[in-house]
């Protein structure tokens, strides 16, 4: 990618487009943003962190302390407490899943992303027959949970297409999750009817200014519509919702804080909703090797993951394939509860005899098969679990 493309008639990032549903009475976004803006992590001290560690249940203030630089020297103790909470709530279970990329068309222009509309990569959308073949290949590995992903183009991967993919997934898998573009409540209800029950949306960064600077075009540019996606998904009947900031895009401490507060506020408003966190940080992407993770090294990433665990001990935490296998192995022993395996992020990449149709969004760092990941889980005295869910 050479320089930035000029964008004409730029969308106002804080204004909903005409067809975007507005949750008029929801105060979630305002509250997340005001708490994030007020979060000054420099004023926390070691004793604040120690106090947070000693609590039975932790407040947003405790969470703030755990994410602060003052917590860094206490990381070993934090990890120990996080491990206790993880085992108390999840026993020795570690859940496995794999992502399936069915399309990579994208109408957005996110300057850090390999799928962005100006990046010249091979674009593809799998036919349903191809999806079936992909799913058969994945199901043969023993996996029972699938996460369906598309690029963010409602035109090229419309809800009806995604719905057909979900219906097909129900034939091969017990658990179907979605990581697609944000939708209105009615679309989520439709997809829930097609068999999906979990929706993850990465906010990327919760800092509206930074967000506007990174997302230059397309529907994704509308910040509040994306931020309220989880609430619409819950209202549409989804059982669980996932949250993430792409750490490194902005101030990662503030972004992680906002992510946790977002989940916390929604869980209080919708106590039945199951909560999950993903913990991605920037990785190299195709045609742009100049972007490097900023200041989110493994120690900081682990601190964030542990802070999520201690703040919301009942939440699922997924550890990204963008991390190396050694890091992932250790993190499932401490705080993560879900790990992907047998990952191919190319479009059509699961079938051995079919050439990949489309390029990947980023590079993965852990190419291990399902069997290898299961073995690594067992070697830690943990138990790989393919399914703990029933669609009702």
């Amino acid at each position: 990618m050479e320089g930035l493309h000029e964008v004409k008639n730029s969308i106002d990032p804080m204004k909903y487009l005409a067809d975007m549903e507005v949750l008029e009475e929801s105060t979630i976004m305002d509250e997340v943003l005001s708490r994030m803006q007020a979060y000054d992590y420099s004023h926390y001290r070691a004793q604040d962190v120690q106090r947070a560690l000693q609590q039975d249940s932790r407040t947003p203030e405790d969470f703030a302390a755990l994410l602060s630089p003052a917590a860094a020297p206490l990381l070993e103790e934090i990890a120990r407490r996080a491990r206790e909470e993880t085992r108390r709530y999840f026993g020795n279970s570690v859940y496995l899943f794999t992502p399936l990329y069915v399309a990579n068309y994208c109408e957005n222009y996110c300057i850090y992303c390999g799928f962005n509309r100006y990046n010249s990569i091979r674009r593809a959308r799998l036919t349903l027959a191809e999806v079936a073949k992909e799913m058969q290949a994945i199901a043969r590995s023993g996996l029972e949970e699938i996460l369906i992903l598309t690029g963010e183009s409602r035109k090229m991967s419309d809800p009806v297409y995604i719905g057909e993919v979900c219906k097909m997934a129900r034939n091969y898998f017990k658990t179907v999750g979605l990581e697609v573009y944000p939708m209105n409540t009615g679309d989520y209800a439709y997809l829930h009817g097609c068999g999906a029950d979990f929706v993850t949306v990465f906010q990327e960064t919760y800092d509206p200014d930074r967000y506007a600077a990174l997302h230059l075009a397309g529907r994704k540019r509308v910040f509040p519509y994306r931020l309220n996606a989880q609430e619409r998904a819950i209202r549409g009947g989804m059982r669980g919702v996932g949250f993430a900031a792409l750490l490194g895009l902005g101030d990662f401490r503030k972004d992680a804080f906002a992510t946790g507060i977002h989940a916390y506020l929604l869980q209080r408003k919708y106590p039945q909703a199951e909560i999950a966190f993903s913990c991605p940080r920037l990785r190299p992407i195709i045609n742009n090797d100049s972007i490097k993770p900023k200041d989110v090294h493994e120690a900081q990433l682990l601190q964030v993951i542990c802070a999520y665990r201690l703040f919301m001990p009942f939440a699922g935490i997924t550890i990204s394939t963008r991390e190396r296998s050694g890091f992932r192995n250790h993190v499932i022993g401490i705080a993560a509860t879900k790990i992907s395996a047998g990952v191919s992020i190319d479009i059509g990449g699961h079938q051995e005899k079919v050439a990949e149709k489309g390029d990947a969004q980023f590079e993965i760092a852990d190419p291990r098969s399902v069997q290898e990941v299961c073995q690594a889980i067992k070697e830690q005295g943990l138990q790989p679990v393919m399914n703990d869910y029933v669609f009702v």
Partner: protein
Amino acid sequence: MENTRDKLTLGGHEFTSRFILGSGKYNLDLIRAAVQYAQAQIITLAVRRANTAGAENILDYIPPGITLLPNTSGARKAEEAVRIAHLARALGCGDFIKIEVVHDSKYLLPDNYETVKATEILAREGFVVLPYMYPDLNVARDLVNAGAAAVMPLGAPIGSNKGLCTRDFIKILVDEIDLPIIVDAGIGRPSQACEAMELGAAAVMANTAIATAGDIPAMAGAFKNAIEAGRAAYRAGLGRVVEQGAAASSPLTGFLND
């Protein structure tokens, strides 16, 4: 001698063991230990966990002669619990069903109202219904009327190992409800299981306490002994607690004999 006649009866089925293995932490070693060392005859099984095609299907690890108690975990409403119960039957889990209806992902506390509704429907369909509930006397009476085979009050939040936080309310259920009262959730130590049995609980369900123990078989055995001791104490009738220091036998009414 007495013990051979001291049986736990649930929906017409008799059991000599009063330890029920819960389903919270899934672990095949735990199932083996519960059967071998705690002598469990009933093992709870989350249908959502059994609902699997792969090699790790928990159903394959249940020893013969064990009664399965499938539960409806994952249900948020009565209708969902009913659907999961039907699925349990279809999977060949038998007619026992433990109702769990939870509408709260943080504390996993049971929704009593939806639990009563589900109990009514499933009891009518011929299930042996064991509802997990927050210990409330009025709800317990509703469950009796709805056709439950036992009432399963929680001792403390699931997985908390905090023991009998609801002790006084469980005692009220023991005193007032004619069905077996099975204490479910929160039992963290053998001594707490023993205390529940002394109170008059008909059985105790535990999982996390054993699953997270340093030595799973040893802890399973400890629970067995504790539950038997508590049961024996209940049947023997606990003696009164003598107040500190000597007391005149009739300080207030002794004058009547003057």
